[in-house]
Structure formats: C-alpha cells, structure tokens
C-alpha cells in the first residue's frame, strides 16, 4: 500500500493529478489514500518531496 510520510509531504496535489484511478484526495494538508489504489507507484515516482512510498502489505 501507499504510505505517506506526513513530515515530508508538501501537500501539493501532484500525486492526485497523476493517479490513474482517482484513489488520492488532498484535504488541506492531509493526503487520503482510498482502497481504489492499484499500487502502480506513479505517485511515488513523481512526488516532488519524496514523501510517498509503496510498501508490501504485512503478513
């Protein structure tokens, strides 16, 4: 799943604009990731601050 490092995120919304399935939503400084996420990693690569990462689900 996509993990947001909220200490690094600049809440610019670039990730929201590139998400192919509309899984992201920015609410003020808070980035929400919905279950629609297909873990394609496009937002991770394009994040200007490097705040996003794609991590294997536990278990």
């Amino acid at each position, binding site marked *: 799943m996509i993990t947001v490092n909220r200490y690094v995120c600049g809440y610019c919304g*670039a990730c929201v*604009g590139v*998400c192919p399935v*509309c899984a992201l939503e920015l*609410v003020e400084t808070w980035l929400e990731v919905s279950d629609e996420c297909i873990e394609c990693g496009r937002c991770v690569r*394009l994040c*200007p*601050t490097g*705040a996003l*990462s794609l991590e294997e689900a536990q278990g």
Partner: protein
Amino acid sequence: MRCDVVVVGAGPGGSMAAKTAAERGMNVVLLEKRQEIGDPVRCAEGVSKARLSSMIKPDPRWIAAEVKGARLYAPDGSNVVMSEDKSGDEVGYVLERKIFDRALAMDAARAGARVMVKTRALDLLRANGSVKGIRAMRYGEIIDIEADVVIGADGVESKVGRWAGIDTALKPGDIEVCAQFLLYDKGIDDEYCEFFLGNELAPGGYVWSFPKGEHLANVGLGVIGSRSEPGAPVKLLRRFVERRMPEARIVEMVVGGVPVSGPIERTIADGVMLVGDAARQSDPITGGGILNAMQAGMIAGEVVADAVSSGDTGVEGLMAYEKRWRESIGKQIARHLDLKEFFIRLSDDDLNKLMHSIQSEDVSKMDLRGMLRVLIRLNPKMLWELRHLVM
C-alpha cells in the same frame, strides 16, 4: 441549495469564470476546498504585463515586482537577454498570488457570486443521467448544490472532469514536478527574470529565478515527470541553491505539479466545463498557467451564461467554449507542446550550440517565435522538424 452555475475551485480560472457569469446575471456559487483562498501558493508567479492588463487592471497590492526582461542561460553559462514585452507570458510582473487570488475571488463576490470556502466537491449530482450539480462537504457536512452547469476549475488535482468521463489523469511525461524557494540573496538581479537550462540542473525542465523586490526571488525548478525520481525536484533545487547562492536565506518553500500535456481531447461534457490547469491549459514550454486559466475562465463565463439563458446546457450548448478557447489560447498551447517534446530530448551540448549560434544576433527585441525562427535559420539540421512552428 439551487443555482445556475457552480464553479469548483477559486484560483484565477475559477474566479474569472464565476465573475464573468455573475456579471451576466447568472446565479453563481464558487467553491473553494481550502479555508484560505490563494494559500499555500503553488506557483512561480510570473505573468506578462500586456496580457494581464488586458484582463484586469493591475493593482500594486498584488504586484510584488516589475521586471525589464528575461535572461536565458545555456548549461555552459552563455546567455541571451530578451526584453520584457517579448519574453512570453511569464515575464513582466511577478505577482503576490496569495493576495491576487483573493482579489479575484472578491471581484467574483462583488459581481454577485456566492463564495463558499472550506467546501470540497465530492461528486457530480445526476438526475436521469444528466449532471445536476455538485455534492460537497462543507465544514464536515454533506450538502447538495443543484446547478445547470458545473465548471471544474479544480487545478492539477482536478476530479470534475474525471467524474464526467473525461480522463484528465496525467502520465509521467505530461507533468513537470516542481520545487521552489522564496529566498533572499544579495546576488539576486531585481530587474530580470532568469531561466537556466541543463539536463544536470533540471532534466526536461529548467531552473527559474523570478525577482520579488529587494533581492527576494522565487527560485525554483521543474523536472519532467518521465525523468524524475522520488524527491528529485527538492534535491536538485537544494543543490542549485547551495552551489550558486550559498549565502541565500530561504523564507518559504513551495512544491507542485504543472500539467504540460498540451490540449486534451475535450474540455466539456453534458453540463460540465473544465477551465485552467483542470483543462490542462497551462503552457507546455513555460509552465505558465495563470493567464490561460483567466482567459479560459472568461470565455467559460460568457458561454455558460448564453447556454443557461437559452436552456441548452448540454454538449451542444457549451460547444462554443470548446471552440473559442482552442481558437485563441489553444493554438499556442499546441505549438508549445511540439516545442517541449523536441526540447526535452536535447543534450547539454545541443543547448550550448544553440545558444552560441545566436550570440552574434540581436534577439533583445524578438519574441519566442522570432527567436525560434532565427535559431532554425542558423541550425537548420538540428531544428529541421520544428520548421512548421514558425511558418
């Protein structure tokens, strides 16, 4: 709640659309999801004087600085100077967007639009398959705002188009990912906007320095998404500032994504119009989006008033918007997309060669197109495939 037109997003495009429609007697609601309009900024704040002045009377309250022109640097440091009135749509005034965006929203409010902040669009309302307004969340409560037409001016993050079946998702090659510092440095040239090219500095983009007066400047860069990696814009900007202005004092940080996809296939749907960055109308070469958004917003405001008055708010009734923006701002956006696709492939050697070739020419009174014409004459082999752009 019921109105004629609901505009999603109170940036320059949305506010101009709301103001224009309200001036034509429309009952307009302008939504902004943030609690403060204009803040945080996601912009380098440069605009051309002439084009801005044709749309709104310049006001010293939101002009941070005026510049004389632009200086463009090749990777090896060789450069050319262009005068302000010829340097394209990003050079002339450097704005204070936090104040500018509020002023435009207030103009819309004065014209009669109802502005609602901290109100986030959640989805389109539909009845019998047609769009009937917006469902929104306001202060944590869900409200339905019925309207004949929804104008999506919701920026790079746009959802309105996607809800209406227009795929506006940006691929990596369709976005410049950017970082910017507002900084103080004694070396800042207060009279010129500066542009630095180079694949090491900013792959597939450029570094900019836009002065804001008294040695303050927006110094930032954009990297084409297809050549970026996580966090690259911030890392590259820190490196640029550390090397070139080690004494700089950084007082603000800005990040953002700029659409550079060029014109998308359609910007209207039944009861829906897209404006500005939401319609991917930002300039693919410069990344400038303010003026195109404002102009598109004005056209959208005029067309929506006609459509609502005539009772046809379907695709047919809104088609005039699609036609008018493509015939005006659309042509340059399309030309600049071709230029961008070409220039992001050039090596630093190519960029240096191009810059050296025009050192003996007087380009100070040329616009971008004139300069391109000269470049093609001097470098016919390298630039052969661009000749259609200056015919």
